[in-house]
């Protein structure tokens, strides 16, 4: 199982309905991109961090391991805004407004990423996917997504073990060997995925499979109190942003 999903399964908010967590986490993400980056995104970032490490109980180290990936992309992307192409100062020169634009982009992306991480770290995929039918996603698509999700974990585990076996047989010592091993890995993943699917199919056919994958979904109710609290929190962040925007920008 992937680390974020494993953390979601043992989350303090695991039993909460996904809608509760979507309103809070994805609401913060929407605020991060909709509000002015300063001070809006900064406030969203702070709020998301406090909720993640406080009430949601996500361990700081796990959060950092997951967060550094999007953060790296944010920094790389923002760096391109520091320079400009053409103009009187040459083909490539420092952009006058570059640091401000890069800083704002960095704030916005890092805050938005934390909002999604809040949702991902508290909501296992197995709780979310079956409920997508109620959101209007066609049943067959949800079924395919469910099989993809369950098979991905098994395949990733197989791939990891095959890679270890290849390394033990000196399969990564030269560039040519590494390419051969990589191709073998991709082909084996394909063969295993289809082999597993046909075995699953045979097993389900023996159990009277009628085309619908029925899975047990942990019971949970949408908490009006939690959702209302989340909406109030989001409203406060937006209100404080507009209150502070004037004094901080003057």
């Amino acid at each position, binding site marked *: 199982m992937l680390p974020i999903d494993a953390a979601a399964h043992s989350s303090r908010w695991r039993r909460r309905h996904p809608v509760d967590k979507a309103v809070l986490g994805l609401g913060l993400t929407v605020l991060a991109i909709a509000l002015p980056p300063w001070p809006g995104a900064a406030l969203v970032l702070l709020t998301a961090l406090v909720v993640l490490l406080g009430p949601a109980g996500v361990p700081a180290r796990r959060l950092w391991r997951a967060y550094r990936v999007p953060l790296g992309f944010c920094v790389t992307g923002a760096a391109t805004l520091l*320079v*400009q192409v053409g*103009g009187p100062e040459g083909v490539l020169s420092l952009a006058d407004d570059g640091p401000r634009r890069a800083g704002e982009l960095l704030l916005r992306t890092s805050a*938005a990423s934390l909002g999604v991480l809040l949702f991902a770290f508290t909501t296992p995929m197995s709780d979310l996917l079956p409920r997508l039918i109620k959101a209007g996603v066609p049943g067959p698509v949800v079924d*395919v997504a469910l099989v993809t999700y369950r098979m991905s974990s098994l395949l990733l585990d197989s791939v990891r073990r095959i890679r270890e076996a290849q390394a033990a047989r000196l399969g990564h010592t030269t560039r040519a060997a590494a390419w051969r091993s990589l191709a073998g*890995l991709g082909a084996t993943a394909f063969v295993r*995925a*289809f082999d*597993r699917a046909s075995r699953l199919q045979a097993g389900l056919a023996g159990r009277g*499979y009628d085309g619908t994958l029925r899975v047990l979904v942990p019971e949970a109710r949408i908490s009006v109190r939690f959702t209302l609290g989340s909406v109030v929190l989001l409203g406060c962040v937006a209100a404080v942003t507009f209150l502070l925007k004037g004094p901080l920008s003057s």
Partner: protein
Amino acid sequence: MHIAEGFLPPAHAVAWGVASAPFVVHGVRSLTREVRKHPESTLLLGASGAFTFVLSALKLPSVTGSCSHPTGTGLGAILFRPPVMAVLGTITLLFQALLLAHGGLTTLGANVFSMAVVGPWVGYGAYRLLRRCDVPLMVAVFFGAFAADLSTYCVTSVQLALAFPDPAGGVLGALGKFGSVFAVTQIPLAVSEGLLTVLVMRLLVQSSKGELTRLGVLVAGGRTEARATGTGAVA
């Protein structure tokens, strides 16, 4: 490279979502029809999705010395065809956003457009064109994967350039800036992905003739053939 969460301004995020929607809806309809007709296809399509997800997690040695991962869109489009890849790609991108913090939900539309729509269609188009010209299968596979990878990154450059026009050079200046940043890494990576896809396909032709025949890449008897168009990835 996926566009990170929150990277695009709200109007751009919505616009790319709207642009992707018809392709995804078309793919969903094809997939739903296929599953209703052949319920057992659910498992094979799920396996295809898992394969695409795992493929995008493989580390690819780059010519520049660094490491990256294949997009998998070329191989996916050749094996499963572009309409199905639009759905499988969307599912994969959703999983990557939520399980790997790679990409994002607000940028899902933009990422779907580049990786699950343009990449597969361009790659599949190149593959089909070459097969019609009687080019050997492996050469067609190489150029299919190469074109899919490179077109994905070209579209990503355009998306970023439109969102962040250069103060002096405008959208074209920004396109040059983002394009040159990607070109350094992505042209060698597209070549690498093309080579890897050829190696994978060679192994598949040797070991999985049954599956490739079922997917329509080979005709009965294990011969390779440029196939007729249509949907039904696992028919």
